[in-house]
Every structure is written in structure tokens, then in C-alpha cells.
């Protein structure tokens, strides 16, 4: 199996991530009630359904167009900060993707996601430790970069990113919010995970699951 990631893989990954968010929608909304208005689950589901649609395998779009359209349309989801930031991330990924190419190796994948993260960071000053989605996203992208540098495969890099995101999301439980709407209630957010960080962790968990399944499919095909 060649170690590349393209539209076929992203299509499965988005589907898996959307299904996890769908399952956990009540939890996400409930976490948002601590400091927000309790609609994070609904918002994330709208965003994920948009992403799922943009990466449908039967569309003719190349990888660049998929990510650019995904970024723009996620931004247009009217999902407050979540959709603006995730939209900026995917638009950044799209901008950094060469036109016409259909897949990346692990290094290209990590590098492009890193540029996506930079694009998102140009929209917010929030850093890890501020109890936001950055607490999951920054370590996840960092894990991808580290895995790629070590020469690991995408099918190892994504589970590593998922673990990093999930640890980052868990760590938000002890933090006090300093950014976004939640900062206004500060101390009250202690003892609850940040809904945005939990969402990002679920997305990477879905990505990793799909990648593991795809690897399993390929192994079956070879041996079967």
C-alpha cells in the first residue's frame, strides 16, 4: 500500500468524523451550556455535514478545490466562532494545496495542515492553555508534523494526532477560559472540558478510525 492521502481517504475521514460528532452532539451542546448558549453540538453537526458534502467522492473537484470550497462553505455555515475558525483552517489548507494534485505523502499532508493552522491562528490570539479548540488542534497538527519527520506512515500519524488532540481536550477540564465567550465566566468553566476542543478531538478520532479501516480494507484485499 502506497502511503498517500487523497480525496478517497478524506471522504471516508470526513464521514467518520461527522458520524462521531452526530453521536456526541448532545454532549457537545451540554458542555457549551457551562459558558455559552448550548448550541455547539448543533453548530458542529452543521459544519461536519458541510464537510462531508464537500468531500463526496463523486464530485470532480481536485484536492485544492475540495479544501477551498470546504473552507468557504464552512465559514458560510453561520456557526459563530467555530465555523469562522474551522473555515479559516480549511481555506488555509486549500490555499496551500497545489492545483491539480490528487494526493499527499505524510510530509506534505502534515506541512499543509500546518499552514491551515497558521491561517486559523491569524484570526485568533488564542493559544494552547486558553481553553479553546486550540488546545486540541495545535497538538494534533504538531503530532502530524513529528510523525512525518520520524518517517512514520499516515496510518500511524493520524492515530498519534487523535491521541494528542484527545489529551489536549481532556486537559482543558482543569483550565480557566481566557478566550471567546467563555472567558466572561472564567472560573466557572473549571471542571468542564471546552466544547470546541472536544469537537476537534472527535474529528481527529474519526479521521484516525477511518484511516485504520482503510488500512484494514487494503490488507484484506491483499490477503483475500
Amino acid at each position, binding site marked *: 500500500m502506497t502511503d498517500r492521502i487523497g480525496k478517497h481517504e478524506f471522504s471516508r475521514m470526513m464521514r467518520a468524523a461527522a458520524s462521531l460528532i452526530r453521536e456526541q452532539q448532545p454532549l457537545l451542546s451540554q458542555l457549551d451550556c457551562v459558558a455559552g448558549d448550548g*448550541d455547539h453540538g448543533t453548530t458542529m453537526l452543521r459544519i461536519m455535514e458541510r464537510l462531508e458534502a464537500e468531500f463526496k467522492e463523486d464530485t470532480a473537484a481536485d484536492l485544492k478545490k475540495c479544501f477551498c470550497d470546504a473552507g468557504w462553505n464552512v465559514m458560510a455555515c*453561520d*456557526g*459563530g466562532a467555530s465555523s*469562522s475558525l474551522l473555515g479559516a483552517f480549511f481555506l488555509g489548507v486549500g490555499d496551500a494545496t497545489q492545483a491539480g494534485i490528487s494526493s499527499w505523502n505524510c510530509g506534505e499532508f502534515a506541512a499543509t495542515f500546518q499552514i491551515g493552522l497558521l491561517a486559523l491562528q491569524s484570526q485568533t490570539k488564542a493559544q494552547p492553555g486558553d481553553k479553546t479548540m486550540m488546545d486540541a488542534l495545535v497538538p494534533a497538527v504538531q503530532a502530524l508534523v513529528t510523525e512525518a519527520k520520524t518517517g512514520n506512515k499516515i496510518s500511524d500519524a493520524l492515530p498519534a494526532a487523535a491521541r494528542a488532540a484527545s489529551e489536549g481536550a481532556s486537559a482543558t477540564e482543569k483550565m480557566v477560559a481566557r*478566550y471567546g465567550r467563555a472567558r*466572561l465566566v472564567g472560573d466557572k468553566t473549571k471542571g468542564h472540558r471546552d466544547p470546541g476542543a472536544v469537537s476537534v478531538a472527535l474529528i481527529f478520532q474519526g479521521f484516525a478510525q477511518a484511516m485504520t479501516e482503510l488500512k484494514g480494507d487494503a490488507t484484506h484485499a491483499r490477503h483475500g
Partner: protein
Amino acid sequence: MKKFINRPENIVAELLEGFVLSHPNTVRLAGSNLVARAKPKGPGKVGVVTLGGSGHEPGLSGFVGEGMLDVSVAGEIFAAPGAPRCLEAIRLADRGAGVLFVVLNHSGDVLSANMTMSLAQREGLNVKKIVTHEDIAGGPNPDDRRGLVGFLPVYKVAGAAAEQGRSLDECLAISERMERNMRTLAVALTTATHPSTGQLIFSLADDEMEIGMGQHGEAGTGRMKLKTADETVDIMLQMLLDDLKVKAGDELLVIVNGAGATTLMELFIIFRRVHQVLQGKGVRLARSKVGEFITTQEQGGFQLMIARMDSELLSLWDAPCNTPYFVVP
């Protein structure tokens, strides 16, 4: 949840449809869920655009019309609209003299607005942005102060200045002066349900109230035992007067805005006390408005806004306007 809705995912589309149908001579729907003036402003005048989540009716689209807003970008329930539709609104409102983009300080709105500004600049559109942040519950740092009902005087003076043919820079300067001179504080009594999820957006004991509650029921900081109307006004008004450093002889505009479930009966009782206190301090109550301008579903409570006015701001406040929820003949 007990609400007259159809399907949760259709709430915004259906409410906007009903809203424009009920005011066909003033507003219309344009593009993707943009509320625009029925008759566009004349060419060569500055356009005024705003953005904000839905579920706060009549805010913000209720103030689209002659003398106030040109276009309002309505988001999903309690969620800011994204940059793509804001950009569309700015293009629509541009009559050749540029556009003033009024943004209430809430994280989602500000993110969308910043993204919109960079896209607009890339297109070469002439747009200036003003962020309203007058909620003193956020503390001394202006970035932490939310934009509450103070949007109303800002829309009003910006819209009036634009209608008079003032330049974009002048409209911006006037709006900024209005913004710098206003302060708001909110108090909540009872919670509201999120119309899409059916969940309560916060909880408050039957005998409690909370000063500093956000527009979306975000928890505030001053939770205390329920007090009488007069006691509540005394606490809130003193905080506002101190923060704005109001002196005897100053001329104030006062707005009492009901959160959704608090009755006009209560709002008048509250206003009466505001009047008494100001009179006692020798502060002039130059203009006032009592009613529902921005709500959060069936939330109980109110926002109290004070603004220091000068003669130009007063004359712009008094200028004619014709919008569904604010008319000056």
C-alpha cells in the same frame, strides 16, 4: 419546550420570511437571508450594515430601513453569520460612498467581521468597521465588554449621518463618539430555552437574579437574591453612572430594554426609578426609550443603557427614520 415553531432547522428562514412579509413597504429579503431596505438608499450615500445571530427579535433586522440600517445579515439562532454572506451584504449596501460595518462585540461576530474586512479589502471595497462594546459587566478592558442594546443609538446616529450625505469617515467618527459615550448593564431573572435544541441556556434559582448576564444568557458574575425594582435600578444605575463618570448637568439618553419575558409594566416601573435617581443627582434625562429592542426568547430581565449626548448626537437621534421597530416621523 413550549414554542410555536415548525421544524427547528427552518426557524430562521421562516421568521425572516414572516418579518419581511409583515413590513413589505420597509424591508425585503435579498441574496442569502439578507434583510435589506425595500427601497435602496440613493447613490452617493454611505451604506450601514450589521451582522448578528437570530433569536433576538426585533434585533437586529428590525432596524433596517430609511435613516438606520441598509442591510442586516441574520445568522442562525444565537450564532454569527459567516464572512461570505457579510461580504455579500456589503456589496449590496455599497452605493458608491463606502459602507460602515457595525459589529457587536461577541467572539463569533468579531471573527466573522474580521474575516469579512480582509475579504472586502482584497476586493477593493471601501468599508470601515466599528465594534460596539458597552457592557460594563465585562470589566475595565474594552475587549471584554460585550455589545448589547447600545447598537440602537449607534445604528441611529450612523444611519442619520449617512442619510444626510456625510462621508464614511464622518459617519465612523460620529458612531465612535456615540459608542464611547454609552454604557449598558443587564440583569437576568429567569432563563430561556434555545429554540433549536430545547435546552435551557442557564439556570437561576427562583429567588435569585444575576447582574451582568450576556445577550445569550451567558452566565454573568453578580448572582444575588432577588431585589425590588427600585433596589435593582439603584445598584445598576450607580455602576453605570460611575463607569461613564456622569456629572450633574450631563444630558443622557436612557434605554430600558426588556429581555423577552419582562413585561412593559415592569419596564415602566424600572424607568420611573431611573428618572427619580437621575433627577436627584441633577442629571438631565434628555431622551429615552422603553421597550423590546433586542431579546433572548423568553428570558426574564432587562438591559439598562445610558449614553451621554451632545447637541449633534441629539439632533441625529431626533432625525427621521422609518424602520419596522423604530420610527421617527
